[in-house]
C-alpha cells in the first residue's frame, strides 16, 4: 500500500478499538445509492520506478529550444542553492503558519520577503504574495475601489498597454462586482499611453488608474505624469511592474509627486522556473495607511512572552476565516514556497547582482534588436525607450515564420498578430541575461533565412 503504513495486525487492533469488523463498516452512513462502483477510468497504481520512467519519457518530449519569448514570463538563471534550500522538507511540507511558534522559519522568510518587495517598489507594506501577476492586479483593482474614500466610483482605467491576459483575468474576477474597466488607448508611435490623450477620461470619476512599467510591449511609460494625473482626479494609482526591472527603474513609491498607491506584479522573474506557466506568485505592496485594505496574508514582527523577537501573521481580521462574507478577499493560500525561493534568490543576488541581471537583460535585448533589425524588412514597431522586450514588424506572417525558427532551435518571440492584428505581422521578442551572443546570432541567421533565404515562401 504505497504511503499507508498500517500493518495487518495494527489494522485489526484499530478496528477492534473502534468496534467495527471491517473498514467498510466505517462508511455505513453513506447511503448505499451513493457508493461508487469501481473506478474503471483509473489505471492500476504504478511504483515510483515506473512513474519515474513515464515522467522522464514525457519530459523528454519537451526539450526546450533557446527562448526569446517574454510576455510575462522570463527565462532567468536560477542559482542551484535556491531550490535545493526551498525543497527542504521543513519549507516544502509545512502549512500556512497558523501556529507561529512552530513556523518561525516560514514567517521570518515572509518578513524578509516583505522587506525586499518594499525596497523594490518603494512602498512600505507588502503582503505575503498572491497567486500570480494577473490575479494580483485584479486584487489591486478591488482594493483600490474599496480604499478610495474620496471617489466612490467603480470605474477603473485599464490601458491597452497592460498585458492582454491580465486584462482578461481582471475582467473575469471583477465582473460580478459591478466594476467597470475603461480601456485607455496607446500611442502607437511609441507603444505607450499618451498622457496628452487622457483628457476624455476626466469627465466621470475614476477610482483608480492602472499604470504598467515596463508595459506589455517592453516600453517605458511616462509614469510620473500618469501618476500625478491620476492623483489630480483623486484616483488611486496602481503600478504593475516587473520586479527585475525595478533594480534599475524608479520604484512606484517615487512616481510623480506622491508616488503610486499600490504596486503589484508577477514575481516569476525572481527565481521561479518557467514551468509552462506556474506556479508563480503575484506580489503587492501599498502605502502604510492603506495596509488594512491589503488582501492576503501579512506577517508582522512582535515579541514573545520572554521579550524575544518573533514573527506572526497579523491583521487577520481582514481575512475570510474571520470576516467570512465581509472579508476583503476570499484568498486563503499564498504562494509560500515560491516566496521562499524568491527570497533566497534575492539574497543570493543582492543589490548589485539584481542590477547586473537587469542591465544584462537590457543590453542583450539591445543586441538582439540591433541584429534583427539589420535584416531587411525587420524593424521596430515603436520608437522610444524599452527595458528587455521589443515588438518587431516582420515582412511575413508570424505563424509561418515561427515554426521555421523553431526548427532551428529558436523560440522567436510571441506572435502579436492574434491580439493586435492592426499592426500586421509582428513579433514581441525578449533576450534575458541567459541568452548568449551565439544564440542571438543563431536567431538572426534563422530569421534571415526564413524571410529571405533560398527556401522562403512568397508573401504579400
Amino acid at each position, binding site marked *: 500500500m504505497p504511503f499507508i503504513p498500517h500493518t495487518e495486525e495494527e489494522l485489526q487492533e484499530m478496528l477492534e478499538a473502534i468496534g467495527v469488523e471491517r473498514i467498510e463498516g466505517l*462508511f455505513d452512513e453513506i447511503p448505499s445509492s451513493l457508493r461508487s462502483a469501481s473506478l474503471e477510468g483509473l489505471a492500476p497504481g504504478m511504483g515510483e520506478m515506473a512513474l519515474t520512467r*513515464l515522467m522522464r519519457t514525457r*519530459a523528454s518530449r519537451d526539450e526546450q529550444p533557446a527562448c526569446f519569448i517574454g510576455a510575462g514570463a522570463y527565462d532567468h538563471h536560477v542559482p542551484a542553492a535556491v531550490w535545493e534550500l526551498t525543497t527542504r*522538507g521543513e519549507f516544502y511540507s*509545512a502549512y500556512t*503558519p497558523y501556529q507561529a*511558534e*512552530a513556523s518561525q522559519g516560514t514567517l521570518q522568510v515572509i518578513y524578509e520577503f516583505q522587506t525586499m518587495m518594499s525596497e523594490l517598489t518603494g512602498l512600505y507594506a507588502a503582503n505575503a504574495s498572491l497567486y500570480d501577476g494577473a490575479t494580483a492586479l485584479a486584487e489591486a483593482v478591488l482594493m483600490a475601489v474599496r480604499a478610495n474614500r474620496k471617489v466612490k466610483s467603480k470605474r477603473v482605467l485599464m490601458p491597452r498597454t497592460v498585458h492582454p491576459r491580465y486584462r482578461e483575468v481582471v475582467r473575469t474576477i471583477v465582473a460580478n462586482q459591478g466594476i467597470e474597466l475603461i480601456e485607455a488607448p496607446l500611442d502607437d508611435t511609441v507603444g505607450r499611453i499618451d498622457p496628452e490623450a487622457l483628457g476624455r477620461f476626466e469627465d466621470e470619476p475614476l477610482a483608480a488608474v492602472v499604470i504598467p512599467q515596463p508595459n506589455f510591449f517592453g516600453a517605458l511609460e511616462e509614469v510620473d505624469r500618469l501618476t500625478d494625473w491620476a492623483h489630480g482626479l483623486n484616483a488611486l494609482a496602481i503600478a504593475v511592474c516587473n520586479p527585475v526591472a525595478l533594480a534599475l527603474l524608479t520604484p512606484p513609491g517615487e512616481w510623480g509627486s506622491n508616488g503610486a498607491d499600490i504596486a503589484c506584479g508577477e514575481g516569476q522573474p525572481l527565481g521561479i522556473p518557467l514551468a*509552462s506557466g506556474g506556479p508563480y506568485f503575484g506580489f503587492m505592496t501599498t502605502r502604510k495607511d492603506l495596509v488594512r485594505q491589503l488582501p492576503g496574508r501579512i506577517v508582522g514582527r512582535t515579541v514573545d512572552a520572554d521579550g524575544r523577537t518573533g514573527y506572526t501573521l497579523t491583521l487577520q481580521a481582514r481575512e475570510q476565516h474571520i470576516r467570512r462574507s465581509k472579508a476583503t478577499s476570499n484568498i486563503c493560500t499564498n*504562494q509560500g514556497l515560491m516566496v521562499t525561493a524568491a527570497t533566497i534568490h534575492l539574497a543570493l543576488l543582492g543589490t548589485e547582482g539584481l542590477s547586473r541581471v537587469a542591465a544584462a537583460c537590457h543590453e542583450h535585448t539591445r543586441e538582439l534588436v540591433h541584429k534583427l533589425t539589420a535584416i531587411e524588412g525587420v524593424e521596430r514597431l515603436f520608437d522610444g525607450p524599452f527595458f528587455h522586450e521589443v515588438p518587431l514588424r516582420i515582412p511575413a506572417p508570424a505563424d509561418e515564420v515561427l515554426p521555421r525558427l523553431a526548427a532551428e532551435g529558436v523560440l522567436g518571440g510571441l506572435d502579436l498578430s492574434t491580439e493586435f492584428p492592426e499592426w500586421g505581422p509582428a513579433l514581441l521578442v525578449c533576450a534575458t541575461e541567459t541568452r548568449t551572443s551565439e544564440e542571438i546570432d543563431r536567431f538572426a541567421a534563422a530569421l534571415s533565412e526564413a524571410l529571405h533565404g533560398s527556401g522562403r515562401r512568397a508573401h504579400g
Partner: protein
Amino acid sequence: MLIYEISRKGRRAFAQAPAAAPSSDSLPRRFRRQRPPQLPEVSELETVRHYTRLSQKNFGIDTNFYPLGSCTMKYNPRGANRAAMLPQFLERHPLAPEETGQGVMACIHELQGELAELTGMRAVSLSVMAGAQGEFAGVAMIRAYHDARGDTGREEILVPDAAHGTNPATATMCGYKVREIPTGADGDVDMEAFKAAVGPQTAGIMLTNPSTVGVFERRIEEIAATVHEAGGLLYYDGANLNAILGKARPGDMGFDVIHLNLHKTFSTPHGGGGPGAGAVGVNERLLPYLPVPRVAEEAGRYRWLTEADCPETIGRLCTFNGNTGILLRAYAYLRMLGREGATRVAEYSTLNANYLMTRLREAGFTVAYPQRRASHEFIVSLKGEAKELGANVMDFAKRLLDLGYHAPTTYFPTLVPEALLIEPTETESKRELDGFVEAMVRIREEAREDIDSLKGAPYRLPVRRLDDVKAARELNLRWEA
C-alpha cells in the same frame, strides 16, 4: 537574526549574477531610480547557512505529525517532486508552441480525466490556482448559468453555518447575498431550516461533504433534489474529498459543480502556505462555462482549448495555464495510487480518524458528535477542560507543539465551543496516533497539576507565545536599519 542583519554593504560574493555590470546608459535618466533597492549583501555560504537554519525552525509533515483539521496534511511523495522538477518541465515557457509541450499537456489531460472519473463529473478544468479560486470559478459558473437563461432574480447563495470562511467570502465576490443554514444537533444540515430557506431567490447552495464538523451529510440526495426543484444549483467544496475518495462521488450525489484542493487530497506540498492548485469539475449543464484554458486531445495531439473554442466560458483566472508544477505532482501521485490506492486513501484516513476519536473518547475527552462516524476528521471539544481546569484550546495547542505534535485546527468550526478539529490522514501510523493520545492525556494532567506552567507553553520552540496584539497594534511589516 535577519538576512539583512548579516548583510554588509559592498559584499559581492556571488557566482550568481552576470560577471560584469553592462552599461545601462541607454535607459533614459528620468526612468532610472536614484537609490538602489536595499537587498541583502551576503555571500552564498551566508545565504545557505541562514535559510538552512531558518528552515529548522519550522514544523512540517517531514518532521512532525501535523493533524491540522481540514488541511489534509499527508505525506508529499518525494518521487512526485522529482518528477515535476525534471529540467524539461521546468524550462518550458508557457507561451512556447504546443509542439514543445506535448509531454506536459499529456499529463494535464490525463489528470483532467482521472479527476472527472473520481468525482463523477463530466469535465474538469485545471487552470485555477487554489481552492478559493476554484470556489470562485464554481460560483461564477452558477451565475453564468442563471444569467444565460435570463433567470436573473436569484440573489442568494445558501451556506451552512459551519462552512469554511472562503464559502461566504466567495459568494460575496460573485455578487451574491449569503444566507446561512444552521447545523442540526446530529451534525447534518437542519433540514427544516434548509427547506424554509430554499426558494426562487436561491441561486445555489455551497456544501462540503463530509461537512466541516467531520460527518457525512446523510440526506444529501434530498438536499440536492430540493435545491434543483427550486431551480438552484449545488456547489461542492472539495476540501474534504479525502474522506470519500473512491467511495462516493459528488457527481452521484447531485452536485453540479465542484472544486478540489490538489494540495490536500492529491498530496502536493503545502509549502508554508501554497502554492496549491484548484480543480473545478462540472456536469453537462455547466460544461460551457468552465474556465479556460483546458487541454483537449485530438488524434494523439494535445492542444489548449481557449475562448475561441469555449465562447461561453467565464474566462481566464490566471495569466497562463494554472499551477502546472503542482498539477504534475498531483498527476504523479495519482498514477502511483492508481485505482486501488485511491480508494485506500478514504479507507485509511477514515480508519485513522475513527481510531483516534475512539481513543480520545476512551481517554475522557469530549467528542462533538459521538453518535456519528467520523469521516477523515472529527472534533474534540475542550469545553469541560476549559471550565474545570482553566485549560483552553490554545493551551493544549501550544503544549502539543512542545511535545512534538503540530496542533490540530483550533476554534473551528465555531459552532462547537473550544473546538479542536483533528485530521490525522492515512499516511500516519498507529504509533503516531497513540503518541498523540498520550500527549493529550499528559497535557490534561499538567493542567491539573500546574495550570500556570501550562499557560506558559511552549517552552521548547524557538520562541514562546507571541504577542499578537502588539503585532497588530504596532505594525512592523518590514526591517528598517
